[in-house]
């Protein structure tokens, strides 16, 4: 067993974990944060995407021990005070960017990372930037619209994070 210390959604956690424990298992089973979904289990679908030190990663392909000392944000950590939706969540709602909703937590986290990295985004940039996330409902058009809306409204994002 290996002792790890991580900050998840602003709270510090320490646990003894088996080396082979995947980060997604740690989040879902040890911490009970089941907002992060498991889809393909093989780093293809992106449903398990979380932020590791601010960058999107597929938590099914990161060992919990590799995340030691890291800051992690999951879908549960995005909302503001009193449950106010993050601007990306709000945009997903506004643009009906989900159908069954299974890919949504991963899509939202990938979009948050993409928006943080790119100063400007056009439709192609959004589509390529989300290529690591599959929507089994094929509801991509509204997802792209939602992320483009965020890209065109950076003021709201800055306000949220300040």
């Amino acid at each position: 067993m290996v002792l790890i210390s991580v900050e998840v959604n602003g709270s510090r956690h320490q646990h003894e974990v088996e080396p082979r424990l995947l980060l997604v298992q740690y989040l879902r089973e040890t911490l009970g944060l089941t907002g992060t979904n498991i889809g393909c289990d093989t780093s293809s679908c992106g449903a398990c995407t979380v932020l590791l030190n601010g960058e999107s990663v597929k938590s099914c392909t990161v060992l919990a021990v590799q995340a030691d000392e890291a800051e992690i944000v999951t879908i549960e950590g995005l909302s503001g005070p009193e449950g106010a939706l993050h601007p990306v969540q709000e945009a997903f709602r506004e643009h009906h960017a989900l159908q069954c909703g299974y890919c949504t937590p991963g899509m939202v986290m990938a979009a948050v990372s993409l928006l943080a990295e790119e100063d400007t985004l056009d439709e192609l940039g959004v589509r390529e930037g989300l290529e690591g996330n599959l929507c089994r409902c094929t509801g991509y058009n509204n997802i792209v619209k939602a992320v483009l809306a965020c890209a065109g409204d950076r003021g709201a994002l800055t306000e949220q994070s300040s």
Partner: protein
Amino acid sequence: MCGRSRRTDRAELVIPAAFEYARAGSAEEAIALLVEHGDEAKLVAGGHSLLPLMKLRLAIPGVLIDIGRVPGLSYIEDRGDEIAIGALARHHDLETSALLKEQVPLLAHTAHQVGDPQVRHRGTLGGTLAHGDPASDLPAAVLALGGTLVAQGPQGAREIAAVDFFRGFLETALAADEILVEVRVPKVAGAGWSFQKFNRRAQDWAIVGVAAVVNGHTGIALINMGSTPLRAGAVEEAVRSGASASDAAAVADHGTDPPSDINASSEFRRHLATVLVRRAIEEATS
């Protein structure tokens, strides 16, 4: 790959076989651990080649040596005629490096073609080279550029030319007690270049791919046309002797042994190689 209809308990998760975990704080510590554990040990950095294999139990290392946080191995530096890249530089670092975009645009561009953003946030240049997968993008770019790899072992560091590095399927010139610490590529700011990748879906591996540099330094390398990343020597020779793009591309499959698999037959891969090499030369010389 995702054919699981129910998930009722832990046993159904795709998880690696149990292993011992050791974290190295330096290259020297990693080498000492390799010496101690021998064949049982595997190095892991970002883990985006190794962990998927471990989850599918295609790799079952007894000891995993984590070099992911060894300090001082993530640099991208100007060294006169060359750019030196620490083995732990991630694909994301390469694709966003202003220095690489200016001096070795082929490498920055190729890094951007690997997997997807999440993969590029974790995968490292050293990892993809040491893994030696013939279907990977970056080994072909380093081959085409005529790069140099630096391996460090108990006796010190040695340089290995990229063309001598890939020895067989997932086998490299690295000894069991060596780690890859640096990759150097020549500056080719003025040269023409191209990267061509044929796949059926976004984020897929290349069915066949080509990395090419022409004008002055000529290097053309093939992805997924044999058991290792390959230099297309016959094509390079033809380009140097002034052959047209089509004539040079006609010999693209010389010396190759492309696999047949679910994505393509060997014959189709040979065809793809001629088409993609022609496009690469045309783009690089335009």
